């Protein structure tokens, strides 16, 4: 362990400490509980107002108030920083932020030796990128990448000036050498000078967490475990904390960052994509390799993680949790539904394939002429608006307006509505409107709409996309995507069989309450935290004044809930004797070690 003090602030870090409001809360005592200090690593997420997955992080932090959280947040843009933070609960000890969108050159110019060290490490790093495929690289290459990465991190910690060095001509030259080396992939060999510059710039950006001063003993070195809330840049500080201070790392990925990178990087030239995907692939493999536990959000993310080198033993699927109370009333009164109405709820966009749903509804109407379809949701973006217009036109074309009798005003059996109106004030009302909920997407991640329908105790018919089969289990009907006839048949079966509808709905609600609640999510993470601290505790060796290791410096009581030694842990009841509120008295006075003792 490196105990050298920090000598430089490499990147401007605005840190602020969130003091708990008023008196410190009393710790919750439970048998077998332990106080875990968690370093929550986020990138463009919590605690920023516009962050990804901030709701999940907020529930996690609020739900585990027996633990302490240090939040290390990388912000994604200036606009995000300006929007500010969400209110933080008192168990958040401190929030340290660093901008990932800009890096100030710290003005450090490397000396000859540091330059050579940089060239060596960077050369190794890019050489490892140019050897073998992105993920299926041999173990030696993965090792080479990791060593080079940690070498650069150590250089940044010892000397600083990594931002300037990563932008320098030396870095570009090293890249060129690696690309022209024999054995480099074809795309990399064809890299031109602008490609090299683009790769160097992107690597500089991706490696910015290396220059942070988070890895000292009073920073990430002091936490019991690092919890990275996504892969990629957020996990990099966790990796370095693991390298420098031996802090165990937990990685949660609700969306696989590597796949996001593949989908986003479509515009760059082949050489840039080849090198950058190699970098992100290696980084993901290293993250999964070093992490103590990796928690994917569903089986789909899990398959990607396994593919990228995560060992099967480390993977624990933790489903996202949703607030079930909103749907409790609807879920417990399934008889209020209109038995002849199908409901589709979601955001209107092309991937939802409403066209297919409308064609299926045409088939359903042939069998069950009284059925109605309510499409509930707002369009997302201009594309969604165009798609919604198209769907309205198609619905008008397929289904003429109908009336009950010759003197009544008719309307279309397909209605397009939005939540928030007088008819459907809440989301739960939307699901309550119909007996059967339909999901017709062609592309889907984790189908939250389906989970909501399950909470409402509705029978569902969904297409077999994304994590649908995994979510629904056996509690709903599943048909292939882009198959309106199969969708129609499944809907007709359910419309004709109210008993089966009720059975399926009850089963779906039971399944959702078991698997997809917030409590389930928080309990799972609580268990994982305790497992990590018990299995792979941080071994901290404290040194005394003479540099000798201090035995029993970090006693087991340090993990007992509440602060036993700190001045804030005065557990005096209100109205207690005033003398009891004095400074805490040490149970044992430290005895100076003498030769005879």
């Amino acid at each position: 362990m490196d105990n050298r003090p920090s000598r430089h602030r490499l990147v401007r870090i605005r840190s602020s400490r969130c003091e708990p409001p008023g008196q410190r809360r009393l710790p919750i005592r439970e048998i077998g509980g332990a106080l875990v200090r968690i370093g929550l690593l986020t990138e463009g997420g919590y605690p920023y107002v516009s962050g990804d997955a901030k709701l999940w992080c907020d529930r996690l932090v609020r739900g585990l108030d027996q633990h302490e959280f240090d939040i290390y947040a990388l912000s994604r843009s200036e606009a995000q920083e300006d929007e500010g933070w969400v209110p933080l609960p008192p168990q958040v000890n401190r929030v340290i932020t660093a901008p990932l969108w800009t890096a100030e050159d710290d003005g450090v110019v490397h000396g000859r030796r540091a330059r050579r060290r940089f060239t060596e490490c960077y050369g190794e790093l890019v050489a490892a990128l140019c050897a073998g495929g992105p993920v299926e690289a041999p173990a030696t290459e993965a090792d080479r990448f990791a060593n080079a990465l940690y070498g650069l991190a150590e250089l940044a910690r010892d000397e600083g000036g990594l931002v300037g060095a990563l932008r320098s001509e030396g870095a570009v030259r090293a890249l060129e050498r690696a690309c022209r080396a024999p054995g480099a992939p074809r795309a990399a060999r064809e890299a031109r000078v602008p490609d090299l510059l683009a790769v160097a710039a992107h690597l500089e950006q991706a490696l910015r967490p290396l220059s942070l001063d988070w890895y000292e003993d009073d920073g990430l070195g002091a936490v019991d475990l690092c919890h990275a809330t996504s892969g990629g840049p957020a996990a990099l500080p966790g990796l370095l904390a693991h390298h420098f201070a031996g802090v165990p790392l937990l990685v949660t990925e609700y969306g696989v960052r590597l796949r996001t990178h593949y989908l986003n990087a479509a515009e760059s030239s082949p050489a840039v994509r080849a090198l950058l995907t190699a970098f992100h692939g290696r980084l993901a493999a290293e993250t999964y390799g070093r992490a103590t536990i990796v928690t994917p959000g569903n089986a789909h993310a899990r398959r990607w993680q396994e593919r990228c080198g995560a060992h099967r033993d480390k993977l624990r699927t933790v489903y996202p949790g949703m607030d079930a109370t909103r749907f409790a009333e609807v879920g417990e009164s399934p008889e209020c539904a209109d038995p002849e109405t199908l409901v589709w709820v979601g955001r209107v966009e092309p991937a939802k394939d409403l066209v297919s749903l409308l064609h299926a509804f045409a088939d359903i109407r042939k069998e069950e002429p009284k059925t109605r379809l309510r499409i509930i949701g707002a369009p997302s973006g201009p594309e969604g608006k165009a798609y919604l217009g198209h769907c309205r036109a198609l619905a008008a074309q397929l289904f003429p307006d109908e009336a009950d009798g010759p003197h009544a005003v008719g309307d279309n059996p397909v209605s397009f509505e939005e939540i928030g109106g007088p008819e459907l004030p809440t989301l739960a009302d939307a699901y309550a409107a119909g007996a059967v909920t339909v999901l017709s997407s062609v592309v889907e991640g984790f189908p939250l709409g389906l989970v909501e329908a399950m909470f409402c105790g509705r029978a569902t018919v969904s297409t077999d996309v994304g994590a649908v089969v995994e979510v629904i289990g056996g509690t709903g009907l599943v048909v292939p995507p882009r198959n309106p006839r199969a969708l129609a048949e499944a809907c007709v079966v359910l419309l004709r069989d109210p008993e089966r509808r009720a059975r399926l709905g009850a089963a779906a609600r039971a399944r959702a309450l078991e698997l997809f609640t917030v409590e389930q999510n928080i309990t799972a993470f609580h268990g994982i935290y305790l497992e990590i601290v018990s299995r792979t505790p941080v071994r901290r060796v404290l040194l005394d004044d003479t540099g000798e290791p201090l035995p029993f410096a970090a006693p087991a009581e340090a993990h007992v809930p509440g602060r036993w030694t700190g001045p804030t842990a005065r557990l005096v009841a209100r109205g207690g004797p005033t003398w009891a509120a004095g400074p805490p008295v040490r149970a044992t006075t430290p005895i100076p070690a003498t030769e005879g003792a």
Partner: protein
Amino acid sequence: MSDLGELDRPGPPAGAAAWDERSQEWLPETTNTEEQPAPVAPPELHEPSAERAPGHTPPPTTTRRTAADPVKALMHRHRELCERAVDPLEIAAGLEAHGVTDRTAARFRHRDVFSLAEEMYARIPRDGDTPTPLAPPEPPGSRAGWALRALLPGTLCTATLAGLHLTHGRARLAVAAVGILAVALAVRAALARGPLSTRRPATHRPGSSTWTYWLLAYALLGDGLLRAALTGGPDSLPDGTPDSPWPLVTTPALALTWACAPAAWSAHLLAARARRKLTASRGLEDFAASVRPLLLGTFTLFLATLAALLAVSGPTLNEPPPYAQTLTLGALLLLARLLTVHGFTHAPVVILRATAAAQATALATVFAARLPGCDALAAPVRTLTTLWGPTTIQTLTCGTGALILLIHATRTLTRASAHAQPERGC
């Protein structure tokens, strides 16, 4: 928790238009949906086909589109994805974004999407042609803006000099003060935008402007002061006339302020041409070799324009144009600015400071020689001025500085990293 589902969305295909086309295709194709296989579901699922109402024909197991090679058809459908893919995972990600799941992959006799993507990646025909590199986009910002702004200092300087010629006494002093302020602000404005602006404000170091002001002041007053000092003066402050004992030389000021425009244009030329060479060159060495003549060419072009400006402004102001010292000073300032613009801030500050210090030392030695017993101090300056005249000091100092910066620039400005596109927000 409405955002976690979005995180794992594989991402839909973009553009509503394509989807509308597809939905149009549905209309005639609805009768052909039996080409899709029967609803697949895990064993515990309720299978709709099992409870189909009597009278329905079960879907035929043979499919219309299944040719001998289904993967080939799939590759054709996703040919753009296949053509640009750099590894199998990219194809896998793209296929998933189009709704291909493991169940779909099973139809192609693959275990999962990954192995399907691997087969597709392995079967991509690889011919030798590489896509031609695209021309780099022009950096945003209007050219007219900075081109006009670069003319501002020269215009204001001309106006000030005209004012000085027309006024006397107190009014003249006021005109001079206002003119100097206006020209200084105009120069700042000209350097704030356009090709002479620093792209990285964070790396800007203060200090170079102080030394630049000193060098300009020396160009106007220094030679006169030196000449006066060597002859025992100066006895009075400069009064702004060329024939006083401490004369004011205004030609360099006029030429240099007008030279802001050619400086901006040569910086623009260098940046634009270098970007084009960047796209065209294959290696860093190629790029350096092609940029070096470009750099020297633009530099020479600037010097030629400055010389022409001097030749015009000298007779206008009835002064002999001080070619050597103004050209060296102009070269020094241009190179310092070019280096700063491309991110090399250290060398220009050092050289400008050293040049100013040398000039100050030369003046100081002459004055210090008046102290008793210190005659020898002025000997070097006195020798130089008697040999080549009092302008030698400025020419020598600025020339040396410019030469050093030129050598430095041929090494640093030919690097590809100096011409990298300014960083865009991530």
